[in-house]
């Protein structure tokens, strides 16, 4: 057991524990906040594993943007503040499949890697990641930028009722788009 092992164990226990609370909590907002803890612990795991840039991107994009977007959606759908009663389906099939997948994969990894010591990774620098992205993986990088653009346009089209496929149909009288709610998607 070295220091990095202790850190990996502690951060892993934190990630799995708060992940369990994400999928079992009765409060919608609390589930989102536990997700912050879980993603932050995973960012710490990246740091221990030597992927420094990935850890900060995780904090920036996941904790900073994705979770905030999820919490916005929780509020825009007028979620109740207290515990909600109708959040869950029956537990048995989900627990069977989820537990089977999780424990099965965990057993597979434990069987494949045993308790073997690997050398400590040297901390990765942004320079190396940049060389990789713009050297070997330029084409996927550019394709991802196109995908982000199309996702942006798609989200705008979806959240605006006055544009989109509905206008292609012959409407008897095109009613003006009156939208009482403010929309922020």
């Amino acid at each position, binding site marked *: 057991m070295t220091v990095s092992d202790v850190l990996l164990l502690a951060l892993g226990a934190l990630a799995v524990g708060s992940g369990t609370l994400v999928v079992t909590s009765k409060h919608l907002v609390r589930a989102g906040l536990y997700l912050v803890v879980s993603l932050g612990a995973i960012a710490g795991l990246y740091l221990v594993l030597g992927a420094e840039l990935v850890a900060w991107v995780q904090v920036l994009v996941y904790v900073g943007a994705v979770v905030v977007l999820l919490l916005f959606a929780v509020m825009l*759908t007028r979620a109740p503040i207290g515990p909600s009663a109708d959040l869950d389906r029956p537990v048995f099939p989900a627990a069977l499949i989820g537990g089977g997948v999780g424990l099965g994969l965990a057993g597979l990894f434990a069987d494949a890697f045993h308790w073997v010591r690997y050398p400590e990774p040297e901390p*990765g620098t942004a320079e190396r990641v940049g060389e*990789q992205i713009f050297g070997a993986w330029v084409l996927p990088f550019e394709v991802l930028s196109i995908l982000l653009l199309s*996702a942006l346009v798609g989200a705008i089209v979806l959240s605006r009722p006055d544009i989109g496929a509905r206008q292609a149909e012959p409407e008897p009288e095109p009613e003006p788009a009156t939208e009482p709610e403010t929309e922020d998607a």
Partner: protein
Amino acid sequence: MHVVIPYVVGALLFGLGVYGVLRRRNAILVLMAVELMLNAVNLIFVTADVSLRSALEGVVIEAWANPGAAAPGTGGVFTLFVIVLAAAEVGVGLAIVLQYYRMRNAVITDDVRLDAEEERIAG
């Protein structure tokens, strides 16, 4: 470091995500569980970068292979790609959820009728 620890953590997180997707009825909670699954895969990518790098030390790369593609750090690059994909996914997914909420005033996935036809958008 014992690389089996983050591997097992990733596997357990993936199982938790599968459980959450199957268990939850609220569409936003389903999206949160999907985020857990994506993070589990990211963690396994980064861990594989560490373990496979030390396993591949001294292996001569074939001449026809792209030498950059086998260099260390590839797991981190793929993790960045998956993070970008997750951001796009959650943007479009929440747009769909909010549009559905505007039409039906509900975010319960059990009530979504996939065979409903010719219903006008209320908004």
